[in-house]
C-alpha cells in the first residue's frame, strides 16, 4: 500500500509539471505556434538532424558494439568507461569540447573549411554535438543485445561457410535487432532533446530546445510555453511510433534466443 502511494507520488512528479504546462496552453495558442514558419522549421530541423546523426553514427557504432560484446582486449574496461563519459559530464562542457574540436582553428575545422564546410553554426555541427551526448545510449544497448546472442550460433554460421560479414548481417544483427533498434531510438530521442551542447556549438540555425530557451529569456514563460508543448507532442508521437515499430520488427529479436 505504501509502495503504491510512493509510486504514485513519483509518477505524479513526472506527469504533474508536464500536464500543468499542457493545460496552461490553449488550443488557439498551440495552433498559432504551429502556424509560425520559424517554429515549424526549427522542429523539422531538430528531427532530421538528430535522425541523420543517429543513422550515420550507427554505421560505426553498431559493429563496434559487437566487438565490445564479443572480443576481449586490453583496456576494454577503460574503453567502456570512455563510452559512458558523455553521460556524466555537464552538457555545456560537452558543447565546449565539441566546439573546440570542430572550430575553424582546430585541425578538423581547417580540414573541413578547405573543402568549403563550416561546422560551426551548421546542421553538421549540431549533429556532432547531438551525437556526442547521445551515442552511449546506442552503443550500450547494442552491446547488451549482441552479448545475449549465443556465440555458438555465430560459430555454427562460420562453420557453414559464411564470412564474418555475412554472419554479422544474417545472424548477430537480426538476433540483437530489438536491442539495437531500442538503442537507436534512445539515441535519436536523446539527440533530439539536447540543449546544452547544441546551444554552444550552434545558436543558429535554431533547433527547438534552443528556440524554447530563446523565447523564454526574451519574452517570458507564457510565450515559450506553446512552442514547448508543441515540441513535446512531436517528440511523444515520434517516440511512440518508433517504439511500436521496434516491437513489430523485433518479433524475431532477442526474445526468442535462449
Amino acid at each position: 500500500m505504501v509502495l503504491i502511494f510512493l509510486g504514485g507520488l513519483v509518477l505524479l512528479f513526472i506527469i504533474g509539471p508536464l500536464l500543468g504546462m499542457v493545460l496552461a496552453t490553449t488550443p488557439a495558442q498551440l495552433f498559432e505556434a504551429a502556424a509560425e514558419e520559424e517554429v515549424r522549421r526549427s522542429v523539422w530541423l531538430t528531427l532530421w538532424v538528430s535522425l541523420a546523426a543517429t543513422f550515420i553514427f550507427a554505421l560505426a557504432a553498431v559493429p563496434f558494439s559487437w566487438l565490445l560484446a564479443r572480443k576481449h582486449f586490453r583496456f576494454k574496461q577503460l574503453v567502456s568507461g570512455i563510452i559512458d563519459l558523455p553521460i556524466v559530464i555537464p552538457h555545456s562542457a560537452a558543447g565546449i569540447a565539441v566546439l573546440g574540436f570542430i572550430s575553424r582553428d582546430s585541425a578538423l575545422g581547417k580540414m573541413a573549411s578547405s573543402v568549403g564546410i563550416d561546422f560551426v553554426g551548421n546542421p553538421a555541427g549540431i549533429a556532432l554535438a547531438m551525437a556526442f551526448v547521445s551515442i552511449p545510449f546506442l552503443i550500450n544497448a547494442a552491446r547488451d543485445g549482441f552479448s545475449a546472442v549465443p556465440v555458438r550460433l555465430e560459430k555454427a554460421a562460420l562453420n557453414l561457410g559464411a564470412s564474418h560479414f555475412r554472419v554479422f548481417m544474417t545472424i548477430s544483427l537480426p538476433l540483437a535487432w530489438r536491442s539495437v533498434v531500442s538503442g537507436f531510438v534512445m539515441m535519436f530521442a536523446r539527440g533530439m532533446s539536447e540543449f546544452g551542447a547544441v546551444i554552444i556549438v550552434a545558436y543558429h540555425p535554431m533547433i527547438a530546445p534552443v528556440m524554447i530557451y530563446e523565447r523564454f529569456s526574451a519574452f517570458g514563460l507564457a510565450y515559450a510555453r506553446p512552442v514547448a508543448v508543441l515540441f513535446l507532442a512531436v517528440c511523444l508521437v515520434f517516440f511512440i511510433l518508433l517504439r511500436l515499430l521496434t516491437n513489430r520488427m523485433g518479433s524475431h529479436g532477442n526474445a526468442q534466443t535462449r
Partner: protein
Amino acid sequence: MEMLRLDNISLKAGEFSMHNVAFNVAAGEYFILLGPSGAGKSLILELIAGFYKPLGGRIYMKDRDITDLPVQQREAGLLFQDFAVFPHLSVFDNIAYPLRHIRTGKNKLIKPVKSIAAELEIDHLLHRSPTTLSGGEQQRVALARTLIKKPAILLLDEPLAALDVQLRGGIRSLLRRINQNGQTILHVTHDYEEAAILGHRIAVVENNTIAQCGSHDEVFHHPRSSFIANFVGIRNFFAGELLTDTTELSVFNANGVSINLLARQPAGKGYVVIRSEDIILSRQELDSSATNSFNGVITAIEPARTGFEVTVDCGIPLIALISKESVQKLGLETGKAIWAGFKASAVRFIAG
C-alpha cells in the same frame, strides 16, 4: 584413404591444456572419441573445425595441411551438442543457409533442400520455425544443414546426450545409415555403449591426451591403462544376433555361443552387455536359476580396483569380477577349466 590426421597436437584454452593429441580417421570410417566430460573432446572438435589454433602440431585433411586455414575453408561440418539452429530463420532457411552464398535465387535452393530434408524425414517441417520443434527435430534440422554442404568429415559433439532415451535408437540408426552412405564421421561421446555400438574405431581421451586408440576389442578387452579399465567399466560386450523373439526366453548368438536372455525385442543384429559382477564361477556346473552356464578355460587373472577380474574363454571371453577370497577358495589359476554362469535377466540387449 586417410581423411583426417592430427599430428602431435598441443593446445591450450584458458587453464586447460592438452598435449600429444594424435590420431587419424580413414575415409568412410565411423571414428569415436571417448572420454569423461571435461576431458577436452569438444575442444578437439572445435580445433578441427578451426575455432582454435593449436600451440603445436599439424592437422591434415585429405593429405592437405589445414592447420592455418580459416573456418570457412575447412571441409568439416560440426554438429553442436545443443544443435545451434538459427531461431529467427525457418527450417528451410536454416537448411539452405550454407548454399545461399553459392547459389542465387530460391528456385535453385528448393531441390537440394527438399532432397536432404526428405532423407532426414523432416520435409514436412520446412516452413516451421525451429523454436516450435522438439529436440530430436531440431537435431535433424542441424544435421541436414551440415550435410547439405557435403563435408569431408562430419563432427558430432555428443549427438545423443540431449535426446530422450526413446529417440536415441532412431538417431543411432540414422547416423549409421549416413555413415554407410560413405560419410566419414568423427563422433565425441562420454558413453561407452554409444562408442561400442557405433564406432569402427575408438580413441580414448584422458589425462589431457589420447590414452588409447583402436578397435572395440582392443579398447574394451585390452584396456591399456587402469584408468581406461575403470572408465570403460564394462568388459562383457559382444556383437551378434538376436535369434528368437517369440518366446519368453530369447537366444543371442555371439560368435557361435548361444546366450539366453529376456529380450522382448524384434530379432536382428545387436549387442549384449553382461556386468562382470553378475558372472558366477564354479568348479561344477551349477544347478541353479542361472540359465546360462558355460565351461571354459581361465586365460587371465588380473587385480581390479576391487577384487580380481578372471577371464574365461568359452568361445567368447567372459570376464567375472570376484573377490580375492573366492579366487583362493576355488584355487583359480590360468589354464584351469572352470564353469561360468549368469542369469538370463543379467543380460542386456541393445539393438543396432
